[in-house]
């Protein structure tokens, strides 16, 4: 099928090239015809007529003289002799007489002669091809004596025309020959290019396969790490004793996963193949993650990092957070990388929110500015070219040169344009504008701070988990059991199909890449059996979603990427099992503490003032250090529980307000 498609593609290329050449030839030959019939031939004809008129005028002098000098019979003889002489004159180039025939029409009112005696007609007078000219014969007093009609040969016109036509035809044939040679060369080149393209495609497919394998190998252990950290985070006892460690492991693994994804993305040559997968995203959480990551990087380089977000940012928007994060992280990382002193500023400006009955949209400009090395004006256009980097000591050492190209492609994919302004030695500013749909009623999973799922309504659902990796199965089982699902496990495709006959599964979670019988084979069997064809099958894969779609995942009801993110898994289960979640409302320790401000022991006034100062300056690192010192002091545990979440979530204004409230309570 692919081969046929390729052949027809090549044939159609050849056909298009041949048609273009054919049209060129038709146009060329048509233009020549037009040139000949509309320009050259009429000009030659006009030149021939002019030549005939001048010739007639000059020869008419002989006739006028005969009228003037002679009288009576002598005049007739003189006229006859003059006519004979004129008829003798021959054109050497065509070896034909110029004048083929002459006739005289005399005005006998003026000329003293017998009527019709001088109306001489000599030579060929019925010559159809001749150029006929009439010349007035006058005496010295300008009396009109007669009209002489000359039949001048058009041989010169024909000879000249034929000569030019021959040359034109020769030139045309030569040019057509050249056209044919060029046409054949182009066909040959296209054929070779086609062969090269096919080789590149084969090599590209091999590379993609290799990347998919690497991706799988790297993601599988991360799947286990992230799976367990998610489970640990739900265990209050573990979190009480090892919370920071679990958080660190989770965050590091998550970061590592993101780096792997980014490396894979950078390695992706065909960036046009990228698809957007928008989903509900809590914007402040999203921005906080970016800020936190950039703050760490900038603090390592001892440069300031500022962020300015408008207070009325929408809570939840519908966007492909992975791609947006990729763009922004790339810009922020570059800004930090290329700034040795000064600051990096991440801001959102020009926020406009349009609300209507049907949908609401937010439009905003993301800007990343730095006071770094800047880009020379002459190099500004090169920075978006793949593998191109502005020459400097930093880029010589690191970077693939694909980051800005991918960012530019992604912003364009999102319907925007990445702009840059830079001054060499002063810094750079990158910005782009985006328009998102605002999610008014976000899914409960998005607002996870105060609500948590504890189960579902109705009967117990039975899930068949098929995965050859024990860790993965274990994580899935632990995740699902806490919500009340019954999980049956199978370590291979064959075992899964056998179990399917024994149990009445409500849904199948199926690993795609398994030895012997892979996920595609299993889902094909499930779909072909009428007894199970209605059961939803969700694919679990460590490959990229795009890679899975390229392989044809039409048999699956849904695809989840490993490491499995719990709320993605729950969202998919809800959709395919039509579940209604049960929620439990978590009481915020922060809220409780706020109600009992008077009971909280606060540190010394200078420490509180220092905290306020850091909060006002948005100095998150200094805040953290100071709070970390307080955490170890049992006296300030309540104080720490109250202030630390505010600092962690960058609620600096609220933190200052809380600290002031605490101070005022203490004063009272």
């Amino acid at each position, binding site marked *: 099928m692919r081969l046929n498609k390729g052949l027809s593609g090549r044939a159609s290329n050849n056909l298009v090239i041949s048609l273009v050449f054919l049209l060129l030839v038709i146009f060329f030959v048509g233009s020549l015809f037009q040139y000949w019939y509309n320009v050259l031939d009429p000009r030659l004809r006009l030149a021939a*007529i002019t030549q005939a008129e*001048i010739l007639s*005028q000059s020869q008419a002098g002989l006739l006028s003289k005969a009228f003037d000098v002679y009288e009576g019979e002598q005049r007739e003889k003189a006229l006859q002799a003059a006519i004979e002489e004129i008829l003798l004159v021959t054109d050497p180039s065509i070896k034909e007489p110029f004048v083929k025939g002459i006739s005289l029409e005399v*005005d006998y009112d003026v000329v003293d002669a017998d009527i019709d005696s001088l109306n001489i007609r000599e030579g060929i007078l019925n010559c159809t091809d001749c150029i006929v000219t009439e010349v*007035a014969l006058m005496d010295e007093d*300008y009396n*009109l004596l007669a009209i002489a009609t000359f039949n001048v040969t058009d041989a010169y016109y024909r000879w000249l025309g034929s000569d030019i036509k021959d040359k034109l035809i020769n030139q045309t044939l030569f040019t057509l020959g050249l056209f044919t040679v060029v046409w054949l060369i182009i066909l040959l080149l296209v054929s070779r290019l086609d062969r090269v393209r096919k080789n590149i495609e084969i090599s590209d497919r091999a590379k993609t396969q290799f990347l998919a394998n690497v991706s799988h190998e790297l993601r599988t252990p991360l799947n286990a790490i992230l799976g367990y950290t998610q489970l640990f985070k739900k265990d209050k006892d573990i979190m009480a004793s090892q919370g920071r460690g679990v958080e660190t492991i989770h965050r590091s693994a998550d970061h590592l996963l993101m780096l792997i994804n980014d490396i894979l993305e950078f390695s992706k040559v065909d960036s046009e193949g990228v698809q957007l997968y928008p989903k509900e995203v809590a914007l402040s959480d999203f921005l906080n993650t970016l800020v936190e990551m950039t703050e760490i990087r900038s603090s390592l380089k001892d440069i300031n990092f500022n962020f300015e977000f408008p207070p009325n940012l929408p809570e939840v928007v519908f966007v492909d957070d992975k791609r947006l994060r990729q763009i922004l992280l790339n810009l922020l990382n570059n800004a930090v990388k290329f700034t040795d002193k000064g600051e990096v500023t991440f801001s959102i400006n020009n926020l406009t929110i349009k609300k209507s009955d049907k949908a609401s949209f937010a439009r905003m400009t993301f800007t990343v500015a730095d006071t770094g090395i800047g880009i020379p004006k002459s190099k500004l256009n090169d920075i978006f070219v793949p593998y191109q980097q502005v020459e400097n000591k930093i880029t010589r050492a690191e970077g693939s040169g694909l980051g800005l190209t991918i960012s530019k492609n992604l912003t364009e994919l999102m319907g925007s344009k990445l702009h840059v302004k830079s001054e060499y030695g002063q810094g750079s500013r990158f910005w782009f504008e985006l328009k998102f749909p605002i999610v008014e009623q976000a899914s409960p999973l998005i607002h996870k701070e105060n609500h948590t799922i504890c189960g579902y309504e109705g009967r117990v659902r039975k899930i068949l988990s098929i995965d050859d990796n024990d860790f993965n199965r274990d994580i899935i089982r632990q995740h699902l059991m806490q919500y009340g699902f019954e999980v049956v496990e199978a370590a291979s495709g064959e075992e899964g199909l056998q179990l399917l006959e024994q149990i009445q599964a409500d849904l199948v979670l199926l690993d795609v890449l398994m030895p012997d019988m892979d996920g595609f084979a299993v889902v094909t069997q499930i779909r072909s059996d009428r007894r199970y064809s209605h059961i939803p099958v969700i694919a679990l894969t460590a490959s990229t979603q795009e890679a899975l779609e390229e392989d044809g995942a039409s048999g699956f009801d849904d695809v989840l990427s490993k490491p499995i993110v719990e709320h993605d898994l729950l969202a998919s289960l809800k959709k395919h099992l039509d579940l209604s979640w049960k929620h439990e409302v978590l009481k915020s320790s922060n809220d409780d503490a706020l109600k009992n401000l008077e009971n909280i022991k606060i540190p010394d006034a200078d420490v509180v003032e220092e905290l306020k100062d850091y909060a006002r300056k948005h100095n998150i690192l200094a805040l953290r250090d100071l709070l970390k010192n307080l955490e170890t002091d049992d006296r300030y545990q309540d104080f720490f529980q109250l202030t630390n979440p505010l600092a962690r979530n960058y609620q600096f204004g609220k933190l200052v307000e809380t600290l002031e409230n605490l101070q005022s309570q203490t004063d009272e």
Partner: protein
Amino acid sequence: MLFMLLSSISFSLIADSFTDRRAVVGLKLFRTLLVADTGYQHHITPDGRLNVSLIYLHDLKTASQLAEQLSSELTQLHDIPVTVFTVTLQDYLNKKSQRSLGIFIADKFDLPRLQQLVKSSVAHKQILFSPYEGDVEKGVLAGLSVESRVRPYLNMQTLKKSQLKIKPFFIKVSKKYAAE
């Protein structure tokens, strides 16, 4: 008035040799045309003469030079003595001059004046000849066509309107404008 005088002077200054040649050659064709007019008898004056006028607007000098040349070459027409004189356009239109067999335009006229002159010449069955390019197309009876050879140039519509009787010989060798 001063403006008109200045413009007339400047026109004379820029009149090139090509225009001068057209006037001289045109004068000869004018004479041939007068000979070819077979209805000349109506224009014989009571004292048995034929009048030929050279009309000008401001350039009396050129008109006089051309009149002198014409009168030296055209003393008689069909054995009738010919009087050549110059007349201003204003005098001609105000009928202050004697009626002529033919009128030679010796000065470049603007369109309204030219149209007045054409109208008058047609009404009086007079031959009106202009050596200036483009005048035949504007209604003047005759002029000259300069291409590979010099030929008389006739406005066939004006010829028909004026009911002049010109020898077919002359018409045959002429270039025709607005021929039916």
